[in-house]
């Protein structure tokens, strides 16, 4: 309450003061340019000691009105060293000129980056690791979910994407996982406001559709920069939300714009099935026991079994009773289509001395390769700034996103999942014969055209076209901030922001669906509002000779209101009318969650003679989610950090080759979790159905609640070195960190027999140690040719230290095959694949039992650790080559050290689709191993008609289907041409460029067949499982950009 009382009047006061305009008497003006003479747009110009300032316009020009006097004027620009011109004397009514030629800051550490709470700091003052990525690196990729562009760009940031297409969810993990079972994704802060990044539905063991995530709403074309705050010290000011790192996104503004400017960019990319990954057998057709189907019933029974005869092109009865050639069909290629993504952006900006703005509108159209899966996203953004003589600075950011997605892609289990059907048909089956009367898999009777005896083998056209799974999202991300510079060293700053979105989703299992003939449907509306307020008082001044401070204290409050309402039911009164009002049985629900965190924050920064920096921060958070009557444990916690930076190159005499050298050291404690409201005690609810007039109810939820929970705590120590050599032709940035999570809230492994699915306790502990490097250089730099190359990499070693009271295992997820789990085991790496293994003899050979039919059956060795699901080693190699007006950029990214369990290959084995199953089809498969009965070496031949049983048994053993997921991939490729100035001058444009862009073109190395090495199931913690997602795609296309 105190916070609210302070925030409100203070904000009002600040707004009033904003209208008081000071008198002007003289003008300082000038140009800001880079070394090559190019104007620098949007540079900050500061009249030192006055609070006056301005920004440079489109031509690099600035002007600032000041009182008569003699001043030092400083220019700052991100990526460049700040530059100061002293002794500028201004008389009343007169003008004085101060020009700045800025040098790239990599030499000096003077470049400015965005840190926590949007504070801009020079890199040399940073005592922690921070990587800033320019907005264009996101926008050049043209992926619907722009955050995917971070993959391979930032050491220590591991991005994986669900195998669910463009509207799917991404998983971003910084420096390993901090929580055993909680959320491990970073906090996203957009223009100062923490935004929601919830996953709106994902596939689990029983299937499901990927509902997308929150970060995908951010329009890449609007992003100016992305700051990745990796460690605890960088993100400590975000306290209990900081344990997974923080990604700060700053959007483009009209700052620096002089007059009106218009920019238009357009791109079209195409995506197609990456056939290079697919390697199924194409020699044997539908059937069992080596025989072709001879009746329609057999054809139906065997539609997904390729244990038939060798293909010979003969006419054979098909699933629909017709006859067709017994020959190979590339069903995946036939079923999927060529996808297309078009992005068009218009941006208008305008700027004067006091006011500037940028307005942009983007339309993104995306058709995925899955028929029926498409999305449209319209994004509008308005950023406006007012700057009254550097005294009062006001900023408003308004974003509106309207996203419409059809055919959200299902994966995992079969019904609804067209991927499953399309990929499991025997190769002699022709998927294109299944389109039905309407192309949507509908039979003559209006129902699903059954293509199998099993109702669970979905007709893929029915799944793609007749099912409905759409979402419509309307989202506003707004913020206002006001800064009042009371003195040249004292400021007040208030900020309030709201991230609000509404998602309307509709799903339909149509009437006539084979496995659910009555049909069912539902409508859901989810509303999420995140209200965030912040008020700080800050001091930025010299204290004594050589010593200065930059400090502040403040209060914040963050309220999250999460509501959902919906109606769903089954059975249609009038089949064909797909509307919930037409349902026979329906239920409605309303979900309501509210939680709040109130905080006090403080930061004290000291710098000594520009070579030694110390910053200490503290934040105390109070949690509504930990508040409950009679609770004895505290509902608050304190988080602190200390970071130091020592610029050796200013302190010591270093060899001439060293331009800049800095060491940094930081310690911090941050937190996370404890984010579910109403989780402290058992509650009951009534079921929404009665029975024979009797009310029914029971225990709400299946987790055993615990009253005395606290958030997890994460302590981290970080050291780093920043070296710039040979006039910045070679830069090296190294970081080592060691962190430990304690008190992690874990759903402790709970036996089914306890009656509950899980129990919560503060017992989890994880350690992560890691090393990150970024080596970048410019091997060639001439007037016409420049070659920049950078190599980043990170090795994270995550160890599960403690799971629960008995240090039992924690299961995270199980795929549909149910022969493997992702699990935490004390003393081992995070997220192990733990599954059914082969039982082996002492010499390592597989032990076989021979059954009554003479089939050798590998003995099961029980559940064993078969690998870890999260790659500990990630690398990215970027190259940018510019020759005259041509540029070529490409990114290779790689991940190493993890494994993936392939459910797709498991199924491909027992269905006879996998290439490995070809051996022995004619004369039997020879299997060698140890005879379990005798202990002697044995060798058996599985007859062709028994191969199916042999592989069926083998497919129960997960070990067979766990592969190295290591890969190196050509992730991005861009070839661009910038129209030369001589030509541009004859056009109405200021600049124009055109590029060829491509993504995921091919793998340089990989070890798993038929699937992508990181075909993720969902964005949860159970990584390393794969089961019939959308196949890997590659994309390519063109983009162009013109500025007027």
């Amino acid at each position, binding site marked *: 309450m105190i916070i609210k009382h*302070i925030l409100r009047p203070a904000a009002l006061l600040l707004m009033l003061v904003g209208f008081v305009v000071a008198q002007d008497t003289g003008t300082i003006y000038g140009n800001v340019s880079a070394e090559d003479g190019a104007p620098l747009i949007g540079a900050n110009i500061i009249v030192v000691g006055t609070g006056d300032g301005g920004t440079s316009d489109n031509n690099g020009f600035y002007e600032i009105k000041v009182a008569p006097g003699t001043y030092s004027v400083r220019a700052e620009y991100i990526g460049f060293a700040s530059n100061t011109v002293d002794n500028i004397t201004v008389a009343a009514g007169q003008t004085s000129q101060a020009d700045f030629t800025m040098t790239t800051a990599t030499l000096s550490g003077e470049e400015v980056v965005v840190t926590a709470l949007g504070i801009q700091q020079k890199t040399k003052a940073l005592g922690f690791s921070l990587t800033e990525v320019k907005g264009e690196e996101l926008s050049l990729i043209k992926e619907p979910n722009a955050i995917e562009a971070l993959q391979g760009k930032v050491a220590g940031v591991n991005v994986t994407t669900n195998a669910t297409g463009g509207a799917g969810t991404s998983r971003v993990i910084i420096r390993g996982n901090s929580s055993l079972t909680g959320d491990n994704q970073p906090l996203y802060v957009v223009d100062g406001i923490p935004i929601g990044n919830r996953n709106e539905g994902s596939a689990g063991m029983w299937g499901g559709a990927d509902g997308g995530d929150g970060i995908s709403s951010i329009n890449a074309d609007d992003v100016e920069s992305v700051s990745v705050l990796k460690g605890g010290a960088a993100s400590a000011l975000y306290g209990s939300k900081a344990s997974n790192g923080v990604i700060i996104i700053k959007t483009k503004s009209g700052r620096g714009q002089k007059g009106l400017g218009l920019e238009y960019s357009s791109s079209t990319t195409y995506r197609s099935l990456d056939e290079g990954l697919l390697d199924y057998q194409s020699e044997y057709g539908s059937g069992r026991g080596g025989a072709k189907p001879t009746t329609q019933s057999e054809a139906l029974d065997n539609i997904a079994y390729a244990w038939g005869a060798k293909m010979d092109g003969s006419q054979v009865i098909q699933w629909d009773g017709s006859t067709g050639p017994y020959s190979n069909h590339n069903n995946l290629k036939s079923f999927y289509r060529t996808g297309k993504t078009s992005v068009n952006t218009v941006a208008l900006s305008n700027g004067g001395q006091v006011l500037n703005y940028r307005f942009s509108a983007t339309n993104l159209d995306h058709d995925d390769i899955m028929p029926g899966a498409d999305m449209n996203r319209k994004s509008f953004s308005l950023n406006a700034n007012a700057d009254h003589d550097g005294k009062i600075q006001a900023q408003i950011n308004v974003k509106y996103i309207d996203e419409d997605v059809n055919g959200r892609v299902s994966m995992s289990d079969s019904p609804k999942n067209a991927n499953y059907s399309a990929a499991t048909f025997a190769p002699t089956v022709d998927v294109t014969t299944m389109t039905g009367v309407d192309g949507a898999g509908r039979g003559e009777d209006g129902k699903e055209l059954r293509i199998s005896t099993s109702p669970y083998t979905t007709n893929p056209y029915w799944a793609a076209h007749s099912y409905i799974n759409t979402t419509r999202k309307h989202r506003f991300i707004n913020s206002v901030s006001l800064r009042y510079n009371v003195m040249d060293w004292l400021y007040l700053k208030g900020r309030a922001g709201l991230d609000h979105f509404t998602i309307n989703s509709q799903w339909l299992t149509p009437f006539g669906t084979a496995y659910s003939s009555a049909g069912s449907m539902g409508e859901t509306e989810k509303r999420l509002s995140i209200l965030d307020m912040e008020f700080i008082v800050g001091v930025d001044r010299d204290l004594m000779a050589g010593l200065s401070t930059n400090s502040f204290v403040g209060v914040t409050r963050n309220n999250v209101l999460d509501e959902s309402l919906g109606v769903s039911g089954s059975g249609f009164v009038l089949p064909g009318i797909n509307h919930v009002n037409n349902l026979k049985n329906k239920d409605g629900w309303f979900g309501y969650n509210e939680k709040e965190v109130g905080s006090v924050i403080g930061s004290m920064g000291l710098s000594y003679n520009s070579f030694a920096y110390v910053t200490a921060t503290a934040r105390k958070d109070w949690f509504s989610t930990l508040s409950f009557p009679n609770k004895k444990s505290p509902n608050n916690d304190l988080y602190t950090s200390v970071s130091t930076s020592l610029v050796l190159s200013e302190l010591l005499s270093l060899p001439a080759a060293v331009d800049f050298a800095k060491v940094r050291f930081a310690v911090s404690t941050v937190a996370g979790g404890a984010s579910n409201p109403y989780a402290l005690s058992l*509650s009951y609810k009534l079921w929404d159905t009665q029975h024979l007039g009797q009310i029914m109810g029971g225990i709400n939820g299946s987790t055993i*609640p615990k009253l005395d929970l606290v958030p997890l705590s994460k302590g981290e120590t970080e050291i780093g070195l920043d070296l710039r050599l040979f006039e910045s032709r070679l830069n090296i940035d190294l970081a080592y960190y060691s962190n430990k999570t304690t008190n992690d809230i874990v759903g402790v*492994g709970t036996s089914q*027999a306890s009656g509950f699915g899980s129990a919560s306790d503060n017992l989890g502990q994880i350690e992560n140690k890691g090393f990150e490097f970024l080596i970048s250089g410019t091997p060639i730099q001439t007037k016409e040719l420049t070659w920049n190359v950078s190599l980043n990499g990170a090795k994270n070693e995550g160890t599960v230290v403690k799971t629960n009271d008995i240090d039992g295992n924690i299961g995270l997820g199980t795929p549909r095959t149910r022969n493997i789990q992702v699990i935490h085991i004390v003393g081992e790496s995070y997220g192990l694949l733990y599954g059914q293994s082969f039982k082996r003899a002492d010499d390592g050979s597989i032990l076989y039992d021979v059954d009554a039919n003479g089939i050798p059956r590998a003995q099961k060795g029980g559940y064993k650790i078969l690998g870890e699901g999260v790659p500990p080693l990630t690398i990215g190699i970027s190259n940018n080559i510019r020759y005259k007006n041509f540029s070529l950029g490409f990114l290779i990214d790689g991940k190493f050290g993890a494994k993936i369990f392939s459910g797709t290959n498991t199924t491909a084995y027992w269905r006879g689709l996998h290439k490995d199953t070809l051996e022995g089809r004619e004369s039997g498969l020879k299997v060698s191993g140890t005879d379990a009965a005798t202990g002697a070496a044995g060798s058996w031949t599985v007859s062709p008609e028994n191969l199916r049983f042999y592989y069926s048994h083998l497919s129960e053993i997960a070990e067979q289907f766990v592969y190295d997921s290591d890969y190196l991939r050509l992730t991005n490729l861009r070839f661009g041409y910038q129209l030369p100035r001589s030509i541009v001058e004859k056009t109405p444009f200021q600049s124009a460029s055109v590029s060829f862009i491509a993504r995921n073109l091919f793998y340089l190395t990989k070890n798993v067949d038929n699937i992508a090495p990181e075909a993720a199931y969902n964005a949860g913690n159970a990584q390393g499982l794969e089961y019939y997602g959308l196949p890997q795609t590659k994309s390519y296309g063109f983009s162009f950009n013109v500025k007027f």
Partner: protein
Amino acid sequence: MKKRIIILSTFALLATSCDDGFEKMNTNPAAASQIDVGYKFTSLLLETSANRYVAWRANLIYGSTMIQHFAATAGYWTGDKYTLNEGYSASLMDTYYQGCAKVVQDILNQLDQEEKPDEMKAIARIMRVFIYHRLTDMHGDIPYSEAGKGYSDGILQPKYDTQESIYMDMLKELDESAAALGSGTSGFGAQDFMYNGDQAKWKRFAYSMMLRLGMRMTKVNAGEAEKWVKKAIAGGVMTSNDDIAYIIHTTESGLNKNGNGEVFSADGNMRMSKTFIDFLTGDPRLDVYAQPGAGGHKGLPNGYDSGTLKAATGESNLDNYSQPNRSSGTGITGEDDPMFFQTYAEVEFLLAEAAVHGWGDGDAAGHYNKGVTAAMKYLSLYGGTEIADADITAYLIANPYDASKGLEMIGEQVWAATFLNEYESYANWRRTGFPTLTPVNFPGNVTNGTIPRRMIYATGERSRNKKNYDEAVARQGADNLTTRVWWDK
């Protein structure tokens, strides 16, 4: 001014009341801290009758085909071929603890806290026995004494009790519960929609369950079996079809529906087993249970897929085989058809068996006849016309009780009478060996061509309750389909 601002903000820093209203905010507006115990009990009856998940897997895919009521060529009907699908096999354990064992424990705790009358506790305890007897019969040693107590006692990893000790405790529970029941209506009243709160019927159900459990021990401990069978008979078991313990289902939602019925709606792959159709030929129940195939009644032999079926019989059209009777309203496959916990017919057959063993009144034939009569008459609860007395009489004349093969005849009749309650049918066959079933030997079966003797444990137990699981496996034998449970040894 400056100083004032700094002082003010320092105060803000020191402020500790950043949590006003948080306790209220963190109270779930959509849930209650406690509800009427009867609401839970009504729900428990339906949960125990079981949902589609477990009806499909444990009861039908495994139970009904192992016992050769049904047969299916589809590969996922694993019980037909003695192949292993771990999830299906473990499905009862996977669902019953959370769905039923937890709930009955919560009910018992609440009844204690609220000091409710003993008869309500007795009824809850009988339900508890019913739940656990089904679990232990399927899996053997299971968590029992420590189970369902995750919240109340904080036991996350309950130990596995031996089936023997579970049986002894269940029998004791039935004994005490029956003793606590009087006459008149219990505190649950109509919330107990099974018996409408009728204490006398619960009492007879308790003794009938005691009869069932006591008889279960004939192979392993005839002395104990005799003791409890006699006690049950003396206590008073079911006396007519009015006493049947069964659940009426309705179609409002999944919870209300008959789980078997939901399976029949979703899955058309099961056919009447040849074994069962052959037995039912000449039985008035044939057309109640089954509907003929295209050319009349014909049972599908167990243990074939479509390929091997054709090779063995020349038949490739499954429509030629009899299906369960799907007639709307009068068939047995409806989502609103009843589900039976224990029937009076079963009780009469148990009494007949008791007579054979010399533990009862000696009138095995009389009980046999009453059992057959009840088993035919109670089928009208499915909605069809009651089988005519004349037809029953004719059947009994054609199939008179023959003391020389009494146990076999009784076993066959139990098998016929427990169609769709496959848990019980399977348990009875394992104990008595009747009816005599010919096992199948499908390639890839995991039982070496023998009918499975138990279902495996929930797979999650291997990791989530490893110590206790390992201990149970070490004691009972491998966690597979062929290890025999205690009373089956």
